[in-house]
């Protein structure tokens, strides 16, 4: 099970969505698809037309910058980060 960490901007949008959860998935895209099944609409918060990751959403797998087709294994740590910007 990959160890998935979400940004603090997401849980307020979906009932019972935690900041951290274990997820069984072969790729980042599959992990997001599983999230979207349980919390419909969540994919649109992370991905845009393509699909590709949104411009200001970065995903890291084991601290390496990842994209949707990056592979996950059972011990992967996945961090979803919102860009450090705004004011």
């Amino acid at each position: 099970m990959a160890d998935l960490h979400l940004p603090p901007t997401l849980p307020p949008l979906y009932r019972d969505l935690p900041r951290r959860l274990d997820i069984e998935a072969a790729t980042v895209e599959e992990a997001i698809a599983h999230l979207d099944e349980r919390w419909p609409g969540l994919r649109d918060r992370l991905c845009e037309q393509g699909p590709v990751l949104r411009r200001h959403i970065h995903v890291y797998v084991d601290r390496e910058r990842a994209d949707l087709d990056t592979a996950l294994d059972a011990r992967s740590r996945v961090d979803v980060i919102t860009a450090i910007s705004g004011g």
Partner: protein
Amino acid sequence: MSSTVLLVGTRKGCFVLESDQDRRDWQVRGPYCEGWPVYHAVHDPDSGAIYAAAASEWHGAGVWRSTDRGESWELSSEGLAYDDGDGGLKLSKISGLTAAHGRVLAGAEAAGVFESRDGGATWSLLSTLDGQPGRERWNDPANQPPGHLGLPAILPDPDEPSRFWAIVQGVGIFETADDGASWTPRNRGLRADWPLENPEVGYCVHKLVMSPADRERFYQQNHCGMHRSDDGGHSWVEITDGLPSDFGFAAAAHPHDRDTFYVIPLDPGHGRCMHDGAAAVWRTRDAGATWQRLDRGLPQRDAWLGVLREGLAIDSLDTPGLYFGTSTGQVFASTDEGESWSEIASYLPSISSVEVAVMD
């Protein structure tokens, strides 16, 4: 007893201001919508729901909805997207909402109209105005101003559900009478201070309003002057004379008098604030023949206030109240048709929109 409710869209969420029908004491609630930038919040008089068009820089565009006067909100963007068959259009923002005839219409950037018939839970694309003059160049990056062109406002016909008008930024007004299946440009008589390849389009319409007292009477604040139409938008005459500038964004039509209309002229330069640091709303009572400056109670020194397209609202009470919100977070209200004003909120985030509803 009825309440007067202001829906205020800001750069950091939606706020709700509530008063009784005296409109003297206001309670401010919010911010709602998780602090997302809200471009336009509207009330559906049929269902009682509130809708707020928003776009997060991180999480994309969507429409928030509340069925309990703003106490709780849900977000949906299901169906709010172009697909591969839509000519490479990309949806970056929902900027204008209209609730009428049992559905919600949303104007999008890039330019398109979406509709929801289930109270904002799901959306579907109604039209991208294909085939209109110059349509193939609307999204050419070489033609884009700062920001980019979208469809920021939709004006419904009060009687015919399939008829509505849409503003496309930098292009003009289009009317459909068949729910977006076909469109007609409605820009005849408008002024453009730049060369036009096609006289039917190329106009910068900022705000379009219909008189509730006469559906043939339209007004618009254009980048190039104030204009009036007496034939349902088929032709326009300019009515700028007497105003301090031909530029502004916001406008409102009196609910009971077809000849009374309000605008907020701004400096047309980069500042786009009220002139000379002195705040004023301007009113005509004779369809634009003459204008009166209304400034009693508004700051007259060091007040560099901006008001955007949806920043001015008027209610439908017997003696209508007016409300405007500024780019510096103040909301001003008048309960006497603009004769005098008071500041009812002072420290909100930068305001994009103000709409007013009378709710039971």
